[in-house]
């Protein structure tokens, strides 16, 4: 059996198709209930607001899904890396110009992804390795920023952060585009199948000659590029960066991946599901926010949805194997 055939078989299509359908069905149910109970909910404007709210989490969640699908659980360094890249972007853009800022941040993101990939391969523990890198990234962001606010005054950057081509924010366009591209990568590209195989059956992947270590590095690079995009958007929108940006966001990224129904142990799902998970959570938050639900209850509901999603998909995957 070829590696690609193994990968195709291991995808567990029924499970992830069910997961995708479950996410879509949940979105529809929440939308109907919210539409019937909340007058301001079912409007085009609010729909755009929800997609915009989902975009920044969703872009990183799409990148995170590659890490999960490759069998490496999660990277707990995403929010800290975002802060570091935001600080670097602000420093370079303020000193030179926007293209240089973007270029340096993307190179930094690739480097951060490779370094984390090497550490994950060496330690065999993605949680501990990325947690440690998170501390390194946050510390570097603090040192580079001098614990102050770094401001930029760049018209082109402000356009990137605040423009609305055809009435839709640039962040939302990017989110939709990346969701489509990531689906193509995982379903149609060789790299996508290698990521799935690495997560579904590591031993089989190694036996078939796949260089799993390189796949892990590439998955972390893709996550880091997603983080870089969000860092650039954030600094561009508000014209400033700080070392404490994105604090506490890692849970949001992971929640989107899990609620979307991507298998925790890897090998099953698509990044599109992570995007759907981000939309679902944004929808839920918007519904509760419009109904003036307290912050504590909101956290409780989102946490419960995550636990419920993990439990249901775990049971289904167990039956499918």
């Amino acid at each position, binding site marked *: 059996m070829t590696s690609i055939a193994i990968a195709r078989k291991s995808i567990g299509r029924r499970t992830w198709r069910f997961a995708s359908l479950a996410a879509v069905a949940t979105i529809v149910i929440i939308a109907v209930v919210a539409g019937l109970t909340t007058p*301001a909910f079912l*409007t085009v*404007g*609010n729909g755009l*607001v929800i997609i*915009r*709210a989902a975009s*920044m989490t969703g872009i990183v969640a799409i990148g995170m899904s590659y890490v999960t699908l490759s069998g490496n659980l999660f990277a707990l360094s995403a929010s800290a890396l975002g802060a570091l890249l935001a600080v670097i972007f602000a420093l370079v853009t303020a000193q030179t110009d926007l293209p240089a800022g973007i270029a340096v941040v993307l190179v930094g993101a690739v480097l951060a992804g490779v370094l984390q990939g090497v550490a994950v391969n060496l330690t065999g523990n993605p949680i501990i390795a990325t947690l440690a890198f998170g501390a390194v990234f*946050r*510390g570097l*962001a*603090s040192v580079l*920023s*001098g*614990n*102050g*606010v770094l*401001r930029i005054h760049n018209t082109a950057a402000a356009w990137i952060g*605040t423009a*609305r081509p055809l009435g839709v924010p640039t962040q939302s366009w990017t989110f939709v585009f990346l969701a489509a591209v990531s689906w193509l990568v995982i379903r149609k590209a060789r790299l996508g199948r290698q990521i799935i195989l690495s997560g579904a059956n590591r031993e089989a992947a190694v036996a078939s000659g796949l260089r799993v270590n390189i796949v892990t590095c590439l998955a972390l690079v893709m996550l880091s590029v997603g983080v870089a995009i969000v860092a650039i958007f*954030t600094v561009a*929108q*508000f*014209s*400033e960066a*700080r*070392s*404490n*940006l*994105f*604090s*506490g966001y890692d849970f949001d990224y992971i929640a989107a991946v899990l609620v979307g129904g991507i298998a925790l142990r890897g090998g099953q799902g698509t990044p599109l599901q992570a995007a759907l998970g981000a939309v679902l959570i944004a929808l839920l938050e*918007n519904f509760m*926010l*419009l109904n*003036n639900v*307290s*912050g*504590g209850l909101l*956290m409780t509901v989102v946490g419960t949805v995550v636990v419920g999603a993990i439990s249901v998909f775990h049971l289904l995957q167990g039956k499918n194997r």
Partner: protein
Amino acid sequence: MKSGFATVVTLALAAALQWVCGSAMAADKGEVVVFVPSSTNPYIGQFEKGAREKAAELGYSVKVIENNFNQSEQDSQVQQQLASGQKAAGYIWWPFENAAGIGALRALSRSGSPVIVSNQFPLKGTDKFYTAYAGANDILSGRTAAEMLLKACAEPGMKCDKGAIIRFPAGVSAGDDRVTGFEQAIKGKLDVISVTPTAGFLEDEGYKVASQIIPAHKGELTWLYTENDSMAGAAAQAARENGLAPGKRILIVGGTCHGDSSHVVNGDLIGTAIQSGYFEGWLAVQTLVKYIKTGKVLPGEVYLAANPDKPPSDDGAPHKFNFLPNPAIGNSEAAYDQAKLWGLNAKQLCNF
């Protein structure tokens, strides 16, 4: 070769001796131990800077012990500090979670050294565990913001009735106090449609909530209070995206200068007020040293004067509660440039 090596060693020893002696001279009155959350938060970075500079001025050294926004970690740091046997001239206690940190505060109070609580207003029933409180008064901060808003609402052509509050995350006591102060001041004058917590304190978190609240209540919102200027600036951006001109069709106030001042000076915000991290750390050390010098604490509270040029005196005994002033600043370039507190200008105090 040997001679060169000896020279290098001699120079290194001389430098080390000078450093040690210099430190000892600067710190001959003792060491102040400061417990704070991480300085990756720029406000806390400013707090540390103020504490260090005031301590150096008064002849003390400072040891800062940071936690990564984790009360358990901070509790453990307290145990380690006390177990080290090192006698501190005094402690400055900024708990990450006020209620959860009471056990550690009690332990510090039993060390025999004075304890000054800062930033997080002490909870009821904990009076015996600290010498004095020195820091911000968040109820005053909320009240100052409300007074600025009411003043702006009284301008000719302005119509204010319903509005919304975007507040700090649930559980942050400073957020509770600011809402309390704000609501007390607007009671019977303005209506609050909603009070919505954010996930943090910065622009992106403020924008996320404001961009959802504003379109949902577009026809009725006339004002927004956001608890700090970072979130207020983001709310102004969201208002403009929804066709509401800040300062004209909607009045926005953050109430504590923090972040980009351009939103204040261009009129997006109706004004701001100085709450300085630098002076909060500075005041905590000054209060501690005043107690060390006098051995007394005056009962009650004192609101320190918002003198533009002169900081409060180092002499005399501190009160039990020593509050930073919250001087308001108008929303013009001139007002911002002229604003000063205790000898430092708004740009120096707010740019963190």
